């Protein structure tokens, strides 16, 4: 195979040595039970499932599969804790518990990061610098709200909802747990939370932290399992609030399932967010923004900037620079601090992504993937770019949830606004231009819950997040995130 030369072997010089994060200091048990009423209890069915490291397909631990009976126990525990302890406690004391959880998480940040990377496949740099710190900060932010709610809802009567049933996805396991639990507790609710079946470990580690914090039993319950476990939470008559982050299909199912009940619902669902580059944009920064927008967390981001719109006059330049930048991305072991793109979260998801890549090729779009090597074991996908794409392409319409970007070109401001909004989704959007008035024109006309101008994929506990249209309703984060957890009278 002399003719086939890879780019790497062509390069003279320097290959970075692997810089692996140590996994020596983490404490993972062989098997995890359910965290209900402050205790670790065995699932009533006796069933456990395995959670694996998607980067090498090795089993990390066994985790309990909660059924309806277990969920019922968890909800009852949450109800009892709400009635007898949590709703009676002075708000300032509630705040202190949440502060304490935040601090304990910070102290264990390194362990949490490594476990997150092992279980979810995301790069250690991301877990360490983004997911875990943001999760800690989320608790820290909402802790302070607990005894200041009258300032959040001035001159209005409000009360907590009661028991919140929360179902979170696998893309940001610990961070999503924080997004759900922290505001719920601050507003005075108790919680039953189900992490995703492929990424339950950091939620269980959080349960250990919660146990350690001395939070009264039953205030937070963590039940692991599959869709049936989630359905049991949604349908439980004593759950007062359902908060769900995940696919639009499941979100619709939940909306139907709670019909006719008084359950309050917030849904944070799918997206096909546009990232718009104007000719006057700072192109190099924009290219970084595009890369961060779609390849961050392997593209497993509901607000990923998966639809790139580039003004025609700079399209060739942007594509050329983008390809160059993609060539320098390092796909590989998530524990390696060199790694930019880690492992795809699961085999199923890799199959979904590959299906869409195949569709893109069949649709006649031009595909580009850097000539990089990917590990033979584990689930990996090269960063992928499709150009020569129209709005009518399936790959430009459906959420792929992987490192796959489509590029469309546009000519005028009106045209790109129309096309960006021409989607059932409305989660996020990005705008790159140097012109201030144009930024505000776009940020006000794009029908999306989050608009990043000259930046992309930034998150903060103080910043509300959530979508328009089929991307869901309700906000998480910031002052607005509290409203989802109180009843205004």
């Amino acid at each position, binding site marked *: 195979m002399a003719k086939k030369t890879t780019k790497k072997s062509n390069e003279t010089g320097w290959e970075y040595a692997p810089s692996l994060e140590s996994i020596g200091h983490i404490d993972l048990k062989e098997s995890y039970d359910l965290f209900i009423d402050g205790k670790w209890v065995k699932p009533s069915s006796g069933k456990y499932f395995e959670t694996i490291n998607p980067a090498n397909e090795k089993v990390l631990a066994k985790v309990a599969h909660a059924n309806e009976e277990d969920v019922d126990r968890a909800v009852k525990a949450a109800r009892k804790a709400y009635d007898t302890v949590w709703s009676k406690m002075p708000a300032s004391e509630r705040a202190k518990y949440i502060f304490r959880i935040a601090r304990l998480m910070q102290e264990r940040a390194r362990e949490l990061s490594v476990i997150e990377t092992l279980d979810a496949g995301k790069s250690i740099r991301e877990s360490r610098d983004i997911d875990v710190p943001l999760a800690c900060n989320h608790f820290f932010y909402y802790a302070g709200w607990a005894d200041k709610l009258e300032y959040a809802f001035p001159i209005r009567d409000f009360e907590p909802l009661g028991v919140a049933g929360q179902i979170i996805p696998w893309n940001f396991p610990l961070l999503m747990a924080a997004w759900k639990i922290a505001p719920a507790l601050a507003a005075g609710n108790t919680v039953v939370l189900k992490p995703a079946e492929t990424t339950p470990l950091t939620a269980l580690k959080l349960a250990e932290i919660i146990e350690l914090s001395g939070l009264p039993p039953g205030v937070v319950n963590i039940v692991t399992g599959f869709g049936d476990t989630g359905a049991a939470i949604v349908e439980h008559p004593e759950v007062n609030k359902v908060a769900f982050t995940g696919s639009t299909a499941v979100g619709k199912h939940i909306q139907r399932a709670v019909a006719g009940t008084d359950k309050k619902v917030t849904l944070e669902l799918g997206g096909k967010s546009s990232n718009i580059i104007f000719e006057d944009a700072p192109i190099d920064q924009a290219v970084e923004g595009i890369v961060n927008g779609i390849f961050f967390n392997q593209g497993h981001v509901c607000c990923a900037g998966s639809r790139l719109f580039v003004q025609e006059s700079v399209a060739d330049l942007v594509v050329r620079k983008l390809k160059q930048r993609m060539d320098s991305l390092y796909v590989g072991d998530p524990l390696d601090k060199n790694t930019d793109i880690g492992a795809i979260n699961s085999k199923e998801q890799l199959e979904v992504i590959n299906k869409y890549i195949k569709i893109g090729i069949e649709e006649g779009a031009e595909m580009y993937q850097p000539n990089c090597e990917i590990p033979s074991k584990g689930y990996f996908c090269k960063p992928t770019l499709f150009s020569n794409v129209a709005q*009518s392409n399936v790959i430009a319409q459906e959420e792929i949830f992987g490192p796959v970007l489509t590029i469309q070109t546009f000519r005028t401001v009106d045209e790109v606004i129309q096309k960006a909004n021409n989607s059932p989704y409305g989660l996020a959007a990005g705008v790159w231009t140097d012109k201030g008035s144009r930024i505000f024109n776009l940020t006000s006309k794009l029908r999306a819950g989050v608009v990043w101008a000259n930046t992309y994929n930034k998150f903060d506990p103080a910043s509300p997040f959530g979508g328009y249209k089929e991307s869901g309703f309700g906000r998480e984060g910031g002052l607005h995130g509290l409203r989802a957890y109180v009843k205004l009278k």
Partner: protein
Amino acid sequence: MQGLKMVLNMIDLTTLEGKDTPGKVKQMCYKAQHLHDAYTGLPTVAAVCVYPSMVGVARKELKGNIVKIASVSTAFPSGQAPMSVKLEDTRFAVSEGADEIDMVISRGKFLAGEYNFVFDEIAAIKEACGKARLKVILETGELSTLDNVRRASDIAIHAGADFIKTSTGKIQPAATMQVTYTMLMAIRDHYDRTGIMIGMKPAGGISTSKLALHNLVMVKEVLGNQWLSNEWFRFGASSLANDVLMQIMKTETGLYQSPDYFSMD
């Protein structure tokens, strides 16, 4: 449903803007072949309709495809150019790969009564078309009376038009029912006399399924079933396709649709 699918298959998906670019045309060509992939069993449109400078782009995108390429020509939309330019315009479009030519008549000359000029011009362009089919745009919005519409139709037909077409889409009113009816009558009379079929293309202003179906009913009633194919009947439209798609999906799902679910290219 059958009618709606027939409408889709008769559309000349059109972009005729000064700001047209290869990017825009490429995207529209994709849409022409993939109207709504979320639903299977839909036809393609009949053709894309572009300016001569964009024919080459469209040809590349539609290589070997059943979707035809129509090019406007003869200094569209005004037609205010010397004959030599109009001929060159037409030859260029054909050489770039246009299957059909949409020419405009000289309305100024027509209104001045110089019918021979108009006739000769159409005949010359027809010759320049070679194998390409010729659609003659009367721009009825400028002809002011139905008598004129009828006379222009007859001239175009006799001069060699394969299709007669109402409008450029740049002038209002465009394809009104009365105008289309008048032109259909001219086609029918010609057919009755000679047995030769001429095609019809209303263009401009037909943006809803309902209007499109009205037109089809009119064709069926005036000309008969044999005209009900894209060989003999076209709609010139840019936004009609999505409205028809919305009606089809409404019929399928029972839910009234939103434009958010249908791609704009």
